């Protein structure tokens, strides 16, 4: 059974600082997703990582994937208050064509002025 673990679950940081969120998964998978969720809102797709060594960047966020280590990271550079949200990683479990996602528990990020 595929398990996905994120850490930390809670992260409070100052504006301007850098930090990394980690996502480990337990079995082989061919794609990993990062989503953002604001309070009371739905999930917004941030990144799709499809291969070993994949790196994607959007603004102050950069995601990478190491399939051999079964690890993805979401790096935050020079955080700003607008990045405050909960971030989820999700790993696909291809099963008979079904791309159902297994989610981590999420990292609640608070960026303080």
């Amino acid at each position: 059974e595929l398990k996905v673990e994120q850490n930390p679950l809670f992260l409070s940081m100052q504006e301007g600082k850098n930090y990394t969120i980690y996502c480990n998964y337990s079995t082989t998978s061919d794609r990993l997703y990062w989503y953002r969720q604001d309070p009371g809102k739905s999930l917004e797709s941030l990144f799709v990582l499809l291969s070993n060594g994949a790196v994607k960047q959007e603004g102050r966020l950069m995601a990478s994937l190491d399939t051999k280590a079964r690890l993805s990271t979401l790096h935050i550079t020079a955080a700003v208050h607008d990045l405050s949200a909960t971030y989820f990683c999700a790993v696909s479990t291809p099963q008979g064509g079904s791309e159902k996602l297994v989610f981590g528990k999420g990292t609640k990020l608070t960026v303080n002025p």
Partner: protein
Amino acid sequence: GAGVSQSPSNKVTEKGKDVELRCDPISGHTALYWYRQSLGQGLEFLIYFQGNSAPDKSGLPSDRFSAERTGGSVSTLTIQRTQQEDSAVYLCASSLDPNQPQHFGDGTRLSIL
């Protein structure tokens, strides 16, 4: 509409009643997913539809839960004889095909009294 649409946005009902939740996927998206988000369990996969194929029901927690997708578009998730532990946000997602990112609706917040 441009995104996945879910209705109702909120539903409060008494224990033992049946409820129906509706999802309108993005036009042209062949894959449709239902997930449940609760404080205790995080985000859990429930069921997946792809075209005319048999749905993947492996995530449904009990036989009180069922879902259908009519005409390859709108989907309805039905919960019979609701229990308090069914209280959660039910999220619907769709994708162009199983290999593309899933786009989520705003969810239905279900509260069982």
